[in-house]
């Protein structure tokens, strides 16, 4: 900040709630201090939100445990012991389910049996497999935010990507892997891009809001996939609405033997993360898209086309979500079934928010969500805690991310300097 209080007499440009929200999730203007302090500023709220989400998740685990009420009837210390134990068992199972059990890993390595080693590392790699679609989806929503667009349509774009990738995967035969696999993967991106382009075009041309239109496009994609799986894309020999298996040449290669499903899609996801970062911050196209997202009027003044920017933003966001769909079909399922996605597209919104719409943040959040999702299965198995607890924790994290004031109040964090009362007042027309 300069030596004086600059904002007191200038009314800032009027913003609607959406703009304020998007600024909040993309760090907004003027919150950058130097070096590690800046990084600390950026990650403080997400990290504390995760922590708080886990703590409150523990509270839910404790109070939904019927054994607690039995134990409380015996004595209060007994109740506390049971409560503590239930949390330790649950989160312990969550951890080993997500990363593997350290003892098993040590034992397997010392035994030298490769099957046992694979088994021991299976949970860890399975977390990466679960994280992969989250990375693509999170990038999709994050890129949208950066261009000032709220892409609720990642789920529909993901379905379209899956449909396109599946079709290319089974209908074309006789191609070598190094052509067929990339082709099928790109087909997924194209399917998603198409589904992003439509609401993008509608917004650019008519101003129709992308939130409404992407939601509608989701429904169209769901019903379209239902129809395809019951009709043109139905596997001939099956009674269920599933597509034919894709060709082996279209599959994303796996790196290890059974049961590890870790596949090439994760490597692509890492590359695409870097690509999105490079595109947004290091190229002139990214510069103009971010300009459109941050201040469309100034973008117009500076000669960038807002029309093209919005269409490009939605199309690219769609392509990224489409990759998530392609990744699931080509790397994990090898066919398309109804309801193949467990809401990856919707979780992606949470991931983009948690990652502050930065590719690196998205990557880290996706890994966390992948680990939570994967570990939850083990938690259900070992501790009998329903898998839905993870949804509760995710929802709590999201609430704290969306309302950072709560986290700042709990942990006495200072609000970013520019967001002080002066700014608040001028936004109310006071100053």
């Amino acid at each position, binding site marked *: 900040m300069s030596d004086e*209080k600059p904002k007191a007499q200038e009314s800032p*440009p009027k913003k609607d709630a959406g703009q304020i929200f998007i600024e909040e999730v993309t*760090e907004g203007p003027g919150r950058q201090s130097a070096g590690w302090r800046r990084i600390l500023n950026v990650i403080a709220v997400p990290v504390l939100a995760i922590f708080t989400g886990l703590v409150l998740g523990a509270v839910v685990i404790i109070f939904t445990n019927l054994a607690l009420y039995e134990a409380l009837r015996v004595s209060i210390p007994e109740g506390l012991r049971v409560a503590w134990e239930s949390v330790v068992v649950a989160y312990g199972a969550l951890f080993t389910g997500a990363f593997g059990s350290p003892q098993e890993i040590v034992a397997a390595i010392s035994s030298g049996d490769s099957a046992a080693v694979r088994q021991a590392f299976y949970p860890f790699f399975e977390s990466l497999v679960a994280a992969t679609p989250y990375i693509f989806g999170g990038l999709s929503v994050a890129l949208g935010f950066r261009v000032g667009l709220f892409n609720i349509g990642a789920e529909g774009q993901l379905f379209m990507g899956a449909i396109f990738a599946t079709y290319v995967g089974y209908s074309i035969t006789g191609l070598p892997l190094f052509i067929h696999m990339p082709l099928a993967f790109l087909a997924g991106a194209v399917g998603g891009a198409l589904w992003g382009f439509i609401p993008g075009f509608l917004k650019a041309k008519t101003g129709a809001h992308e939130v409404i239109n992407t939601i509608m496009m989701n429904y169209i994609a769901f019903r379209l996939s239902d129809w395809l799986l019951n009709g043109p894309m139905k596997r001939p020999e099956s009674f269920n609405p599933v597509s034919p298996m894709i060709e082996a040449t279209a599959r994303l290669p796996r790196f290890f033997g059974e049961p590890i499903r870790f596949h090439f899609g994760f490597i692509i996801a890492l590359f695409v993360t870097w690509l999105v970062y490079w595109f947004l911050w290091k190229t*002139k196209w990214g510069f103009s898209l971010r300009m459109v997202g941050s201040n469309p009027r*100034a973008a117009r003044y500076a000669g960038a086309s807002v029309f093209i920017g919005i269409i490009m933003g939605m199309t690219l966001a769609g392509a990224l979500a489409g990759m998530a769909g392609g990744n699931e079909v080509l790397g994990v399922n090898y066919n398309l079934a109804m309801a193949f996605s467990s809401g990856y597209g919707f979780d992606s919104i949470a991931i983009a928010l948690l990652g502050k719409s930065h590719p690196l943040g998205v990557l880290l959040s996706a890994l966390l969500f992948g680990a939570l999702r994967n570990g939850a299965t083990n938690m259900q198995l070992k501790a009998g805690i329903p898998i839905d607890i993870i949804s509760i924790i995710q929802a709590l994290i999201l609430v704290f991310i969306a309302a950072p004031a709560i986290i700042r109040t709990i942990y006495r964090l200072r609000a970013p*300097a520019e967001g*002080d009362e002066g700014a608040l*007042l001028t936004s109310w*027309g006071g100053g």
Partner: protein
Amino acid sequence: MTPVLELKGITKRFPGVLANDHIDLTLEQGEILALLGENGAGKTTLMNILYGLYQQDEGEIFVKGKPITVHSPTDAIREGVGMVHQHFMLVPVFTVTENVMLGEEDTRGAGILDRKVAAEKVRQISEQYNLQVDPDAYVENLPVGVQQRVEIIKLLYRDADILILDEPSAVLTPQEVTELFNIMHSLVEQGKSIIFITHKLKEVLEIADKITVIRRGKVIGTTTPADADQNVLAQMMVGREVQLEVEKELPEIGEVVLEVKDLLVEGHHHYVAVDGVSFSVHAGEVLGIAGVQGNGQTELVEALTGLRHIESGQILIDGKDIANETPRHITEQKVAHVPEDRQRDGLVLAFSIADNLMLNTYYLPPFSKGAVLQENVILESANRLVKEFDIRTPSARTPASSLSGGNQQKVIVAREFSRPIQLLIASQPTRGLDVGSIEYIHGRLIQKRDEGCAILLVSTELDEIMGLSDRIAVMYRGEIVETLSTADATKEGLGLLMAGVKGGVEAAQPS
């Protein structure tokens, strides 16, 4: 006699800034106190404390000798302190009476509004202070000057004795300013007291009984118009000697650079905003467009820079028609544009200063090579411009949002002036800036003119228009009503033309 208002040792800290540093202020009954200071000096913060929008960290407020605490504007009004903000807070579709009643409605039992009683009170106030406001008029149909008087009535209706006027003349024509000053005199004659916030030196000398100058949150001194002149006040405000008048040589007029023929532009809701305007600007001259805000200047500039669609007419730059071309195409014809609203149009506040310094040339070499931005080149160029244009910032990587208004404007000026240009379109280039920044930007403009650039200057500040222009065109209701040479123009004559007075043409010529 006890002063009607006394501030003692008011201190207000914001994170990293001392906005008010032990400020003492005294206002006597029936006095007009001018509070003078640059933007960011702490005037508005101080008044917001008095008005209950902020709480002071230290210090006390006395009204008629009695210490008071204000937590909200409601408290302030109860103590008889009222404020007219720079931006009015009126409901356009309500009548004057309804606006005045709002928040303090008279009712006839059962919550039914009693407009009659209120309207009578408004009429009475209006007559008492010679405000000439019709209680039944709709606010949206009133000129800005009258709307301001409605704001004043709102305060008088609530029995305010101390009126704070925040930059009241910023939105008015010269005639309206004179009327406002008459009203202010009539108010103090009848026992009200006024604090008048401004950074305009001439007005202070004209109206104030006492002048208190604030700089960097501190009271620098208190004086009276009899003991001070513009130079003394400017020096107190800025802390150094200031060149108030722009020094310039006679223009060396060259070829026609911009020629506009029969331009017709529609504004929002399809009314005709620019109605068949024709003019030309030569290399090496400044053509000033004078006019009250909202007479088509904004739309004219947007049309010239490709931001607004043109219905008919021609815009020739160097003889080439650029009507309805894209902003980028027009920029590439060596046209620079300093936009009217720097934060809305001219800057991306979230971006760094370095990014803002190449906002409209980022896609060209040397800033981009192929598709890739050349970060080193961008940063080097930015560091050079920060130094050359004296942009006060810790670093070129700092976001533009953290700069003061004057420095934000310098970023735009640096960007637009540092590339080769033949035409400069500057819209309100010094609006809201302090004396020091205005001096700097005026100097740069004249320097560009002397380098042979054609300059179209749009401003609602008559002093600015008269100080910089070689020729002046006056816009009224979308038309250029008169174009005259600056030597032939008088402030009064221009003021009449701006107000649409027909006889203004004759009056504008010195007799």
